[in-house]
C-alpha cells in the first residue's frame, strides 16, 4: 500500500514538476513577449527623440513605463552607443549597461532584460534597454500554482489510498505474504516453509505453484545433500588419499586420508599448486609436462594406470606411494582425480620377505652342508632328500622319492619304537631320537634324528621334515666304552672284595699281634722291676741303669702297642653319631693340656666353633692329637701361639684348622705327614709314635671329611680338616 501511495505521490510530483516546468517556460515566454512588445512601442516612440537628440522627449517617453510597475530600469543609447537617457529618474548610471548589446531578451535570475534597436525607416537611431523584475509576479504565480497542485495531490492521494486498500485486501496481501515467504526461504535456505493460500484466483494459483516449487527444491536439496554427504563419506572413508586437481594443477578436493598422509588440512591446501604440496622437487618438471601434454592432446600416458612414485610429506620426508590418476569430465570442466596409497609398509615387508627368503636359502644351504635332510608327506612317502641323505644311504634320489623310510630300515628297532615315533609326530610334536639304518649296500649307520611336523591351517601336519646327523662313529665308540666299563666294574668289584678280605686279615693280624705282644712285654717289664726290687743292692750301678733302660723301652713299646690298638680299633669300631659341641670339646682338651704344660708360656686362641654331627670320643681324639702335636712342636717357642678356628665353607663343609708357630716342615714331605709311623722329625728331638695324624685322617675320613696340611720350616704348621654340614649343623 505504501508503495502505491509513494508511487502516486512520485507520479504526481513528477507530473506536477513537468507541468510546472512547462508553465514556468510559458510564464517566461509570455513575459518576454510582453517586454518585447513594450520595447517595440517605446523604441518606435523614441526614434525622433534620438534622431534629434531631445533628451526631455526621451525622458518623457521612458516615463510612460511607469504604467508597467515591474520595469525596474530602462535606457536609451544613441546611434553611437552612448547612453542617452535612463529610467527611472535618478537611476544610478551603473544600473544599466554602459553600452548596448545585441537584440533579444534574457533572464538573469528573476530579472528579464534585453536590448531593442531603435529604427526609423531604414535609419538606425539607437538602442533601447529594458529590465523587468519578474520575481514578484513569478512568486505570486508560483504560490497559486503550488496551492492548486497541493489540493490536487491531496485529492489524488485520498483516492489512491482508498483504491490501494481495496487492492491490498485482494491482491497485495497474498502477494506480500508470498514475497515474505520467498524472502525467508532465500535468507534462511529453509525450503520447508509453505505459503498460505488465500483464494482460488490467480494469486492462489501463484501460491500453489510457489509451494510446489519449494517442495521440488526441498526434495532436490535433500537428494543433493544426501548424495554429497555420501560422496564425502566415501571420500573420507577411503583408505587411499584422494586428491583432485584442475588442469592447472590447483587442488580442488582433498580427503581425510590425504590430510593424515601428507600432514596438511583440506582448508589449507585448496587452491594450492599440488606440485609444491606433495611432489618431490625433482619430479615437478615431469608433472608439468604431463599436464601440458594433456592440455595439448587431451591424453597423457600416465593416466588410468597405477604407478609407484615417491611423495612428499609436510615435514619434507619422502615416502613411496602407489598412484593412479583418472581424468574426470564434468560438462566442459576437466579435473584429475588422484588415488594415492602409502606403500611404505608394503615396501618394507617386501624387503623383509626378500631378506628372510635369502636367510632361509642360506639356512637351507648351511643345513644341507651339515645335516642329512629328508621331507615326507603325511603318509610317510619321501618327497625330498638332500645330497647327504643320498650319500649316506647310497641310494640315488630317484630311488628314494616316493618310497617310505622302510627302504633303509635296519630291523634293529622294535615295532613299538616306530609306533611311538609316528604317534608323536602325528600329534604335531617334535620327535628326537637315534635310529639305526641300513644303507643300500647293507652298511649299518646311526643317525641322530629330529623330525619336525609342519602343521597346516587345520592344525594337522602336512609334511614332516627330518634332520639327521651321522652318529655311527660315536655309537661305535660309545659301545666300546660301555663294554670297557662293564669289564672295569667287574675287575673293581673283584679287587675290592680281595682288598676287604686282606684288610680284615691285616687288622685281625695286627690286633692279635698287638694283643699277643703285650704279654711278653709285660713279662719283660715286670721281671725287670722285680729284679731291681729284690736284688737291687746286689746289682752294680751299671746293672741298675740297664734295668731302667729295659723298663723304659718296655713302657715305650707298651704305648706303641696301645696306639696301634687304638688305630686298628678306629678302623673297625662302630661310630655312635651325636651332636658334638666342638667349643666345649676343645676347651676341655686345652684344659687337660695346660695341666701338663703349666711351666710353658703358651697362648691359646680359639675362635667360635660349630656344633657338628659326629662320634664324640673320635672327635675328641682328633683334637687331642692335633693340639698335642702343636704343643710338642712349639716347644722351642716362647711364647707359643696355638690357634683353633673354623671357616664356614660355601661348599657345604666346615673347614677347621689348628695353626701353630712351631718348627714347621718342608712341604715336599707333606704327603708323609698323615702316614702310619711316618715321622718328619727325629725321635730324639720330638717324642712320638708316628700314629697321631694317621689316626686323625682315619677318623675324619670316616666322618666324610678331608685332611691336609701346610707349613714351612721354622715358620709353623697348619693342619686342616673338613666336616660335612648337615641340616642340624647349619650354624
Amino acid at each position, binding site marked *: 500500500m505504501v508503495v502505491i501511495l509513494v508511487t502516486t505521490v512520485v507520479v504526481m510530483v513528477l507530473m506536477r514538476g513537468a507541468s510546472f516546468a512547462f508553465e514556468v517556460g510559458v510564464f517566461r515566454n509570455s513575459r518576454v513577449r510582453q517586454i518585447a512588445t513594450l520595447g517595440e512601442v517605446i523604441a518606435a516612440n523614441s526614434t*525622433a527623440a534620438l534622431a534629434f537628440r*531631445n533628451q526631455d522627449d526621451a525622458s518623457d517617453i521612458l516615463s510612460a513605463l511607469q504604467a508597467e510597475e515591474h520595469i525596474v530600469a530602462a535606457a536609451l543609447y544613441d*546611434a553611437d552607443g552612448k547612453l542617452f537617457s535612463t529610467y527611472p529618474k535618478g537611476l544610478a548610471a551603473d544600473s544599466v549597461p554602459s553600452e548596448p548589446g545585441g537584440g533579444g531578451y534574457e533572464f538573469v535570475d528573476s530579472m528579464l532584460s534585453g536590448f531593442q534597436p531603435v529604427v526609423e525607416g*531604414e535609419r538606425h537611431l539607437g538602442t533601447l534597454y529594458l529590465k523587468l523584475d519578474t520575481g514578484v509576479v513569478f512568486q505570486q504565480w508560483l504560490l497559486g500554482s503550488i496551492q492548486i497542485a497541493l489540493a490536487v495531490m491531496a485529492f489524488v492521494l485520498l483516492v489512491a489510498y482508498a483504491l490501494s486498500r481495496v487492492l491490498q485486501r485482494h491482491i497485495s496481501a497474498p502477494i506480500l505474504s508470498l514475497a515474505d515467504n520467498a524472502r525467508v526461504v532465500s535468507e534462511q535456505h529453509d525450503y520447508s516453509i509453505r505459503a498460505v493460500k488465500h483464494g482460488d484466483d490467480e494469486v492462489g494459483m501463484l501460491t500453489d505453484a510457489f509451494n510446489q516449487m519449494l517442495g521440488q527444491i526441498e526434495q532436490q536439496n535433500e537428494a543433493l545433500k544426501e548424495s554429497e554427504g555420501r560422496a564425502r563419506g566415501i571420500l573420507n572413508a577411503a583408505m587411499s588419499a584422494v586428491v583432485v586437481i584442475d588442469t592447472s594443477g590447483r587442488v580442488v578436493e582433498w580427503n581425510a586420508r590425504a590430510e593424515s598422509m601428507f600432514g596438511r588440512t583440506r582448508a589449507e591446501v585448496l587452491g594450492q599448486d599440488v606440485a609444491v604440496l606433495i611432489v618431490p622437487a625433482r619430479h615437478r618438471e615431469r608433472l608439468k609436462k604431463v599436464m601440458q601434454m594433456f592440455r595439448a592432446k587431451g591424453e597423457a600416458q600416465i593416466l588410468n594406470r597405477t604407478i609407484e612414485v615417491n611423495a612428499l610429506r609436510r615435514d619434507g620426508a619422502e615416502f613411496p606411494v602407489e598412484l593412479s590418476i583418472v581424468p574426470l569430465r564434468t560438462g566442459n570442466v576437466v579435473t584429475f582425480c588422484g588415488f594415492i596409497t602409502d606403500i611404505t609398509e608394503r615396501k618394507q615387508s617386501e624387503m623383509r620377505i626378500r631378506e628372510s627368503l635369502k636367510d632361509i636359502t642360506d639356512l637351507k644351504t648351511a643345513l644341507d652342508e651339515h645335516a642329512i635332510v629328508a621331507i615326507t608327506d603325511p603318509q610317510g612317502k619321501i618327497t625330498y632328500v638332500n645330497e647327504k641323505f643320498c650319500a649316506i644311504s647310497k641310494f640315488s634320489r630317484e630311488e628314494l622319492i616316493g618310497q617310505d623310510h622302510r627302504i633303509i630300515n635296519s630291523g634293529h628297532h622294535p615295532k613299538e619304537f616306530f609306533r611311538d615315533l609316528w604317534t608323536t609326530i602325528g600329534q604335531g610334536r617334535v620327535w628326537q631320537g637315534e635310529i639305526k639304518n641300513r644303507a643300500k649296500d647293507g652298511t649299518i649307520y646311526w643317525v641322530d634324528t629330529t623330525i619336525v611336523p609342519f602343521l597346516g591351517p587345520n592344525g594337522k601336519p602336512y609334511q614332516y621334515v627330518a634332520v639327521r646327523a651321522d652318529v655311527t662313529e660315536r655309537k661305535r665308540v660309545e659301545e666300546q666304552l660301555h663294554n670297557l666299563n662293564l669289564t672295569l666294574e667287574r675287575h673293581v668289584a673283584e679287587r675290592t672284595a680281595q682288598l676287604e678280605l686282606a684288610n680284615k686279615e691285616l687288622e685281625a693280624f695286627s690286633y692279635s699281634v698287638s694283643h699277643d705282644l703285650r704279654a711278653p712285654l709285660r713279662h719283660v717289664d715286670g721281671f725287670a722291676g722285680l729284679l731291681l726290687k729284690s736284688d737291687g743292692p746286689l746289682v752294680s750301678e751299671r746293672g741298675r741303669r740297664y734295668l731302667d733302660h729295659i723298663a723304659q723301652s718296655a713302657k715305650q713299646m707298651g704305648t706303641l702297642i696301645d696306639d696301634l690298638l687304638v688305630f686298628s680299633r678306629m678302623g673297625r669300631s662302630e661310630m655312635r653319631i651325636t651332636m658334638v659341641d666342638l667349643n666345649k670339646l676343645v676347651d676341655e682338651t686345652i684344659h687337660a693340656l695346660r695341666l701338663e704344660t703349666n711351666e710353658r708360656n703358651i697362648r691359646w686362641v680359639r675362635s667360635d666353633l660349630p656344633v657338628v654331627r659326629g662320634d664324640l670320643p673320635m672327635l675328641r681324639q682328633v683334637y687331642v692329637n692335633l693340639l698335642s702335636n702343636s704343643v710338642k712342636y712349639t716347644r722351642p717357642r716362647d711364647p707359643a701361639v696355638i690357634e683353633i678356628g673354623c671357616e664356614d665353607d660355601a661348599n657345604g663343609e666346615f673347614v677347621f684348622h689348628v695353626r701353630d708357630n712351631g718348627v714347621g716342615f718342608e712341604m715336599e714331605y707333606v704327603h708323609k705327614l698323615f702316614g702310619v709311623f711316618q715321622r718328619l722329625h727325629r725321635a730324639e728331638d720330638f717324642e712320638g709314635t708316628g700314629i697321631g695324624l694317621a689316626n686323625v685322617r682315619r677318623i675324619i675320613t670316616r666322618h666324610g671329611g678331608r685332611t691336609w696340611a701346610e707349613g714351612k720350616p721354622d715358620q709353623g704348621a697348619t693342619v686342616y680338616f673338613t666336616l660335612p654340614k648337615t641340616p642340624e649343623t647349619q650354624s
Partner: protein
Amino acid sequence: VLPFLLITTAPRLHAQNPTTSEYVLKAVFLFNFAQFVEWPPETFPSSDAPFVIGVLGNDPFGPLLDETVRGESVGGHPLTVQRFARVEEVVACHVLYISTSESRRLDEIVAHLRGRGVLTVSDSERFIVRGVMIRLVTERNRIRLRVNLDAAKAAGLTISSKLLRAAEIVSSEEE
C-alpha cells in the same frame, strides 16, 4: 509590428571643436529629416532618383555633410549633397539648408520654393517666422527643433508626429 528589417549604421562622426561638433549634429539632423518627413511622390522623377540635401548660401558644414550622407539612401533613393549660390539654381531638392547669409533674399527664396515640396531648414529664428519650416535652435550645448507646421503643410510635406513630439511648433508671423 517589426518594421526594422533594414538597419543601417550611422556614419561615425568625429567632433573636433564645439563649432564643428555643432555642425556635425546639424548635418545628422538634416539627414534624419529624411526619415520623419514624407515628400510628395512627384519630387522623385524616378524610383532611383537621388534624395538631395542642398545648402543655399555660405556652407557652414564644410565636408561634414558630405561625409554624413556618403553611401546612404532613403527608400531606394541615394543621398546627395548639392550646394547652391542662388535659389534659382534649386531645381530638384528635398531638404534645403538656408544659410543665414541669405537673410536679405529670404522672402524671395521662400516665395520661389513655395509649393515645390522642399523642406527648408535654417538656424535663424527670424527665418522661421518668415516661412522657413524648421529652425535648428542651439541652446546650452543642445540643438532643439522648432517647426513651422503651416509652412510645411503648405509645401505639401507631411511631418511625422514623432518629430513633432520632439519639436516646438510655431506659426508664421501674421503680416
